[in-house]
């Protein structure tokens, strides 16, 4: 059976009416999350998980997983579209992948060309999204088949590589990022050990037997932590709101933009595959590339449409690319994809090499739904962009208290007890202080999610080798993966030591 056959199965799932609805809710919320400041894609996805859990509760387990992931993935790539709207209109990125879009997008808006900037951003995102999807459909299964040959030793090293890559780019200080990662891994060991059944670090307290749930930690650190931070920032008040004008690019705009869009799509996709790099980095790379290739580099920063088209395509391409390691290897490459991974786990559908074998309907249903979702997003972000732009005017003094209340609703709906609300508050307050002092939040959440997988493979590998630790470096594939992991930590250190500026990925 080939890719087309599987895609057909996927479309037969994605085109069921309830999945079309879930997809629409997902991309709609995603666009809103992208537009609203104070709530990013990772907290938006985390907050939506409890709601999807309820909405899908009447479906069969596998159908429920498909519908839920379709909706959550929609939030993820939808936010990439929405984030550009605020960058262009009020010079404030809705999420970090749209920071570069401010440079030229806002200048275009000041010249009365906001509509053209928004349109080219949506078109670029659409083309990049489709390109990433085609590549995803072609590459994911072959990659999964390679990973299927991995034993526990190789898998352990692969997870280490994933963790090293994300942590290496997670923040300004490597030791601090590693501290957060290890703390997350340690948190994952609290509760009943799944292998031996013994109780670990629970001290006979029943509520701790199930451990600290990732969703509680993710909502606390991403959503609540962000609320505290935004609350302390000055409310800038009503800003001059530029007219959007005509939401159609001119023929000249298209002529200038198609090459940056094509380059951005490819660049973004491959940056997205790399764990840790992600959407923000890819948009910076694309901007630099376009400026270098342009015949009029002096126009950049003054409203060059290439400076909007390239980066906006790149960040959407990266969002698609990021799904490859998630679906095929079970390794999330960013804060948002790790939240998505947690959602998969909640439905007992582990992403990774076995996903395509065991749950082809889930895997291909989600991929097919993204074709649909990208079309919906194009409509939402071209003709309807003026409606979404109104969301920018929602004042944070109304938005923030409501986000807190949605956090409560979400955690209580999933957990059903107030203990987890205290846990959420604790992690929210901790994240607020830690993030302000360059201890990044994403590695901790990631460590909590990947911890069990890391430990299980670690123990299985050592059991196979009779406790000999050298097994990890004696098997060639494992050794190679560990070397790459080490390089991912060491190379930025060396570059920084030489005084080079290294881009870090701050998704929050």
């Amino acid at each position: 059976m080939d890719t087309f056959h599987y895609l057909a199965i996927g479309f037969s799932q994605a085109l069921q009416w309830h999945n079309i609805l879930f997809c629409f809710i997902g991309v709609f919320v995603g666009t809103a999350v992208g537009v609203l400041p104070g709530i990013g894609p990772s907290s938006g996805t985390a907050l939506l998980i409890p709601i999807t859990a309820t909405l899908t509760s009447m479906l069969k387990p596998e159908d429920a997983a498909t519908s839920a992931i379709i909706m959550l993935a929609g939030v993820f790539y939808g936010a990439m579209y929405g984030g550009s709207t605020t960058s262009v209109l009020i010079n404030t990125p809705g999420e970090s992948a749209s920071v570069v879009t401010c440079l030229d997008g806002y200048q275009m808006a000041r010249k009365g060309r906001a509509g053209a900037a928004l349109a080219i951003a949506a078109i670029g995102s659409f083309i990049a999204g489709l390109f990433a999807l085609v590549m995803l459909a072609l590459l994911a299964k072959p990659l999964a088949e390679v990973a299927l040959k991995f034993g526990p030793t190789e898998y352990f090293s692969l997870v280490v590589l994933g963790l090293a890559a994300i942590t290496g780019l997670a923040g300004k200080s490597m030791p601090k990022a590693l501290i957060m990662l290890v703390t997350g891994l340690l948190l994952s060991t609290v509760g009943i050990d799944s292998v031996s059944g013994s109780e670990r670090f629970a001290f006979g307290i029943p509520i701790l037997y199930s451990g600290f749930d990732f969703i509680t930690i993710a909502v606390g650190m991403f959503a609540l932590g962000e609320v505290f931070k935004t609350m302390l920032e000055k409310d800038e008040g009503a800003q001059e709101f530029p007219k959007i004008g005509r939401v159609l690019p001119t023929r000249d705009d298209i002529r200038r933009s198609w090459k940056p869009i094509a380059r951005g799509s490819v660049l973004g996709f491959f940056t997205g595959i790399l764990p840790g790099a992600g959407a923000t980095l890819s948009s910076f790379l694309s901007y630099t590339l376009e400026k270098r290739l342009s015949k009029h580099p002096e126009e950049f920063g003054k409203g060059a449409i290439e400076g909007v088209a390239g980066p906006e395509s790149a960040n959407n391409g990266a969002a698609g690319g990021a799904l490859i390691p998630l679906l095929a290897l079970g390794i999330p490459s960013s804060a948002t994809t790790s939240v998505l991974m947690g959602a998969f786990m909640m439905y007992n559908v582990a992403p990774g090499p076995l996903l395509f074998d065991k749950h082809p309907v889930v895997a291909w249903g989600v991929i097919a739904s993204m074709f649909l979702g990208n079309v919906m997003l194009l409509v939402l972000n071209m003709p309807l962009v003026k409606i979404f732009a109104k969301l920018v005017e929602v004042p944070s003094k109304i938005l923030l208290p409501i986000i807190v209340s949605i956090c409560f609703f979400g955690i209580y709906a999933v957990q059903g007890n107030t203990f987890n609300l205290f846990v959420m508050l604790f992690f929210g307050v901790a994240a607020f202080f830690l993030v302000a002092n360059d201890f990044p939040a994403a590695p901790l959440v990631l460590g909590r999610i990947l911890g069990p997988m890391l430990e299980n493979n670690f123990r299985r590998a050592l059991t196979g080798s009779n406790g000999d630790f050298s097994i990890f470096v004696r098997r060639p594939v494992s050794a190679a993966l560990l070397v790459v992991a080490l390089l991912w930590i060491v190379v930025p250190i060396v570059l920084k030591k030489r005084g080079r500026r290294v881009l870090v990925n701050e998704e929050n």
Partner: protein
Amino acid sequence: MERGAGTPRFFPHYRALIGGIVINKRFDILAGSVFLAVGAFFVVTSRGITSSSYGSNVGPAVFPTLLGIILMGLSAIVIYGAIVYKGPEKAKSSHNYKKLFILIASIVVYILIFERLGYIISTFLFLTFVFQLMERGHIVKSLIISAAFSVAVYLIYVVLLQGNLPPLPEFLTNLVAGG
């Protein structure tokens, strides 16, 4: 870009990193100590895990013990880096911390009354209070938004979708049923 003067030699990149960023010495020492204690805690309590791992010589204590040791090492690096750091300190921000502490306190109260008063009443009280905390005035607007939000969420989620949220307190429902 400021550069820290005396920086640890055994972790070479730390210097360049601190060179780029300004740190808060006291916070880093405090946070480093807390993480050091967390690491030590896991190492020590791992010894008490009852191991029943027959058929495997890697028990449930090995992984957390190793991680605990790594965490202690990393914390030591951060603490040392902060102690020897001589660059400029993070300026005291003029942030409105009082507002933040009131918000956190009101979240604690919200948790405490959440099950006792039920979702609708506790959420209504919390939202009204925090709207007023964010900006005084427009009390009618605050009341309307809080009431609309809490009732709408409850109706949609519990009545329509059959989800689970704390119901109205019994004495109230009894009152309505009795009256």
